[in-house]
């Protein structure tokens, strides 16, 4: 009460000003810190934007690669991928039987395996066709590996006998992926 009795205009002004200065000073301090952060951000902005553009380019490339492999969304089907490669130019393998299976070589890792055989066992292939087919399978996707190849002459040969260079084959394609525990 004594304090309020002696509260004349200058004192009220001092009191009000000090309270106001404390509030505004706090706000100004906060906003100044915000401004300093913005100025720092502004210096970093060119680098962040450059990084965004690089990542966008990488993502674009990756999406295009996924499209090429037929592994983009909606086409994530390895059997489709295999059959497509069996029919491209310079391969001409034609119809193949695909027998999928799964195994787990390690914890949280899953192998999707696809045994590939010509549908017609008696169909003969040139070495080049088989080689191109297997090459295309690996070349067009980084997530698959040819893990088993067996190439036999179409007619069984005795030692020293010269082949007429027609062959049949069996192959296994493995797609390994991490599975979430």
């Amino acid at each position, binding site marked *: 009460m004594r304090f309020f009795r002696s509260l004349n205009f200058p004192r009220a002004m001092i009191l009000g000003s000090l309270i106001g200065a404390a509030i505004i000073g706090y706000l100004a301090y906060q906003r100044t810190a915000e401004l300093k952060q913005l100025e720092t951000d502004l210096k970093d902005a060119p680098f962040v934007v450059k990084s965004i553009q690089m990542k966008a380019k990488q*993502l674009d490339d990756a999406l295009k690669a996924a499209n090429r492999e037929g592994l983009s969304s909606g086409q994530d089907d390895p059997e489709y991928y295999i059959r497509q490669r069996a029919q491209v130019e310079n391969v001409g393998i034609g119809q193949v039987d695909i027998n999928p299976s799964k195994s787990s070589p390690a914890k949280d890792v899953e192998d999707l395996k696809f045994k590939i055989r010509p549908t017609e066992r008696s169909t003969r292939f040139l070495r080049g066709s088989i080689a191109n087919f297997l090459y295309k399978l690996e070349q067009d996707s*980084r997530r698959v590996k040819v*893990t088993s190849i067996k190439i036999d002459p179409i007619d069984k040969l005795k*030692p020293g006998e010269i082949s007429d260079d027609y062959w049949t084959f069996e192959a296994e394609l493995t797609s390994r992926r991490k599975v979430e525990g």
Partner: protein
Amino acid sequence: MAKSCGIHIGQRRFAIVVLDGSAKKNKVVFQREGDIPPGEDPILATAQGLKEASKGVKVPGENIGLAVDSGLAAYRTLNLPFDDKAKIEDVVKFEVESQLPQWDIDEVIVDFLTLSSTPGVESNLLITAVPKDRLEARIRACERAGLEPYEAELDTTALFNAAEQVGLLGEDGAQVLVHVGDASTSVVVVDGGRLHAMRSVHSGAEPLVAAAPPPPSDDEEEDGAELPPEPEIDPAALAQRRAESASRLRRELARTLSAANTDNPVEGIFVTGLQLPELFDGPILDVEIRPFDGLPGEGDDVGECAVAYGAALRRLGGGSLKGTLRREELRYTGKFERLELPLAVLCLLLVMSLWVHLTIVNRQILWRGEGDLDRGQRGDLQIWLEASNAYMLPSAEDDYPGVLTVPPEEIAAYCQAAASGSDLDRTKMQELRNIERLLTIELDEVNRELGRTSEVEHPQSALEALTTVLELVNGMGDEIGRVGLRQLASNTAQTKAGSEAYVQVKMDMDFFAEADLAATRHYNNFANALEDQPWCRKFERKQTKVLDGGGGIYVDGLTIEVDTTRIERDDDEQEQGQ
């Protein structure tokens, strides 16, 4: 124990008393009186005298009291139909204005003392009026001497308080208190322990000798005329004048006694201040006149410092008369009070400058950050964000394919939201970084789909292992001669975690040559070449057989373990291998 200081400034003399103790029990620890040295500037001269006399006196400012010569003041009585002090304060100056025609009411300090009152009905006041300039001169003199008084009063009230302190004022008697000053004498009439009347007589113990002015009329006496400066003193003339002063004072005291009209009989006239022996020449109107003693002092008595004692006592909380002459512009202001207005202005300036700073910072934040999108004003970071989006995303309007030709929906939607300022939880830089984060997540996802991530080690390629072995065969030329392959198999070994991965290549091979020995040499060359390869993990030489009919040898089930990670690749192949 508190200390207080009382200062009494007369026309040509001053007195200082320092008390130590409380209002009830105190002692005089310092006592000085002296003449105010002559000088052109009375303030400076008084200050000089006070300063020299008060060396070593250290008393807090709030404990210094000043009593001024009542010769400066005019006394009036006033009856008001109420006794509320606050109301009296409000009206007293205007009520008494008509009784002080000699002064401009704005140029005087008006104080009042209550002589008697009937609660809620009326009050009888003794009004004291002092010209501001004269009071101010004395206050400034004290200030310059380093003894600024917290309060000022007339010497009559200080005298009353001093008499009250020594128990002189009995409730069943009346007393006349007299303080003989240098140029004037203060008279206080007390009746039944209460103030009855006050007056001042312009006649003191050190009267002017040469060019003495004519004695003032009664009215002039009451009006506090300032005396001229002290002239040269002739001792014989001085003695004559002192006798005249004493005589005149006795007449004035007789007038006072006859006009006092007290309820109680007057017990005596008690005189203090400067010595004026002629004053004690017998009773006045049958009232004994005697010295006012009993006050403590450095010697036996406080002597002429009684008024200063009363002023000092008041600052210790004693005394019942509270004269308050420091009013209006002469009000006591402490150091803070003097600084408070400049401080207030300074504080206001501080608030204003902070406000301006805040406004500027807010504006700069707008310029640097998002800006005001509603008004079409874009901040720097907003411009970066929009430029980044424009460069990254395709635009049908501009026929621009964009860096990201088919942006994932989530990324495209967030980019649009960020550009429109819809993301209220993030700053612009956080929005940019979030776009970068979303791109990274999407890129990792696609890379994982594409098997480009290193989080899972892919099995070794049976095709690569077989091709590597066949390339070696093809590259050996004459060292291996003509060979025939009757069966080829290549299988990636199923190894356990932690063990070394490899591919097992199995071949049935014929080595043709004119002589068996040459074919055997070719086989050995091939075997040696295999063993020299870094990628050849294991190779077991097999026994060879001679072809039927000669012309070479053959080996069935030739087994080679190949570690494809050790195959040397050029940069492009290496990148693909990863």
